[in-house]
């Protein structure tokens, strides 16, 4: 029992480092879930939201259902993590947002002492007609870079529905980060996918985001901002596949390279309908020396100035 309490405390401390507020897990109006390894340390649901959970060998299986017509005011708070330096955590999540429903969820994945940790998130998502789901995932991996993270989201966004996914990893080291988003968007539906990552040391970053606009009027925005320093390596593959009339899409990838880091950006546009319109832009460059000098004239050291600029880019 004492060990569980300590684990809870450590996770909550790391959760606070990523911008979370401790009291959110005890507020009955805020839906929440806190999972350490394969142990569910806390869970709260509100009317119209169902959350089934099952502990398995190295993680948990979750099934989240937001019932038809339910709109949840407060964003759901999720905290996944591992306190020990070694371990595996696999989260299998199946989420169904029924018709005319909507909610926001903020997931904090924290591994404060990580040396050899594998964190897998297999997320299947179905959003019904006229609904919305906004999902933010914020990570903290400690300072040693010993985490391998593989968040995979496969989903379908229904007619006139909206899905937004934001992935943020700015604090501490990344380790190995390999993400895949693969989302189909139906008639007049829209998605926005954002990734903001700062890689350092020998971090390896791979972002693979695919949007399939398969029905009339579907829209997608795929936007990535990656900063890599030292010997880090990043590859960003962004794909929009537009096969229906009046579909629209845009890919925007910005990568900032410092030191001996290496960046690759591969925006892919696949259009098979002459009434579809998809655009893309990709820029890889270094920080502007004038911007650094400007901040230095206010007394910031070069390192402090670079940090301010990177935080601005990833904000």
């Amino acid at each position, binding site marked *: 029992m004492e060990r569980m309490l300590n684990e809870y405390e450590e996770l909550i401390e790391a959760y606070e480092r990523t911008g979370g507020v401790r009291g959110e897990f005890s507020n009955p109006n805020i839906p929440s879930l806190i999972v350490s390894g394969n142990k569910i340390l806390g869970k709260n649901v509100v009317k119209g939201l169902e959350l089934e959970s099952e502990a398995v060998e190295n993680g948990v299986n979750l099934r989240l259902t937001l019932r038809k017509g339910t709109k949840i005011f407060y964003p759901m708070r999720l905290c996944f993590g591992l306190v020990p330096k070694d371990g595996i955590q696999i989260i299998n999540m199946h989420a169904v947002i029924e018709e005319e429903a909507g909610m926001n969820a903020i997931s904090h994945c924290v591994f404060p002492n990580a040396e050899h940790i594998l964190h897998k998130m297999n997320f299947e998502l179905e959003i019904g007609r006229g609904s919305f789901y906004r999902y933010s995932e914020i990570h903290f991996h400690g300072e040693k870079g010993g985490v391998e993270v593989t968040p995979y989201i496969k989903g379908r966004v229904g007619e006139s529905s909206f899905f937004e996914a934001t992935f943020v990893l700015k604090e501490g080291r990344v380790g190995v980060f390999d993400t895949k988003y693969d989302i189909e968007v139906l008639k007049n539906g829209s998605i926005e996918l954002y990734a903001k990552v700062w890689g350092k040391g020998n971090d390896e970053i791979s972002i693979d985001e695919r949007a399939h606009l398969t029905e009339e009027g579907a829209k997608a925005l795929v936007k990535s901002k990656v900063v890599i320093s030292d010997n880090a390596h990043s590859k960003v593959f962004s794909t929009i596949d537009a096969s229906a009339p009046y579909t629209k899409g845009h890919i925007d990838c910005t990568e900032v390279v410092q030191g001996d880091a290496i960046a690759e950006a591969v925006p892919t546009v696949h259009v098979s309908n002459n009434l579809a319109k998809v655009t893309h832009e990709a820029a890889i460059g270094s920080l502007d020396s004038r911007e650094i000098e400007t901040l230095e004239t206010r007394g910031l050291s*070069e390192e402090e100035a670079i940090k301010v*600029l990177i935080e601005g880019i990833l904000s």
Partner: protein
Amino acid sequence: MNEILIVDSVYLKKDGRDIVNGLTFSVPEGTLCAILGRNGAGKTSLASIIMGLSGYRPTSGRITFNNVNITNLSVPERARMGLTLAFQNPVSIEGLKISNYILLGAKDKNEKTAREALERVDLDPDIYMKRTLDKSLSGGERKRIELAAVFAMRPRLAILDEPDSGIDAIAIEKIKELLLSFKKINTALLLITHRATIAEIADIAYLMDAGRIIKSGPPKEVNEFFITKCGSCFHSKLPE
């Protein structure tokens, strides 16, 4: 009165060209000094040398700030001693909140300081505190934010490179008021300008040409000399 800045026999050669030629002048503590001169006279290079920007280390000469030889100090070291520079064309910084930018160099890093600084340059804090320093700002707005950031820093000496450029005629009076208010907080200013209306508020003016000071004195007198003598000057010949 003590001199806050002494520039002594400074030379700068860049790409085989003489940019600054044995420049010598000083700025007394808490005073407003104007530097006048035609395009290409070396005014912005002078600002860069005093601030110690990359590529602007003097070939020879000495710069003393607050009785310390700063000739070989870095930009942040100079800034921490109370010296700063507002660039002629301030940069945009993506994602950085204007309030946070203003407070970067401020001693009192609180909301009140940022709001007061914005009010000084006639920008509504309720609108600008939360905006970011991005490219959506006009050149004039960006210049005013730069002046606000310098005011919040309360340096011993601020070099303002063309503080009036890009600012509309209505706001210019507010900017003049701000420049005069620097004296009240004991900040000396080195104003690099083309505009007589800005130069006239200075206590002393220097006229630069071909990388050196060719005249100093009351702003009205120096400005008159600038207009009458430098108007037909082609730099290769200095006025008598």
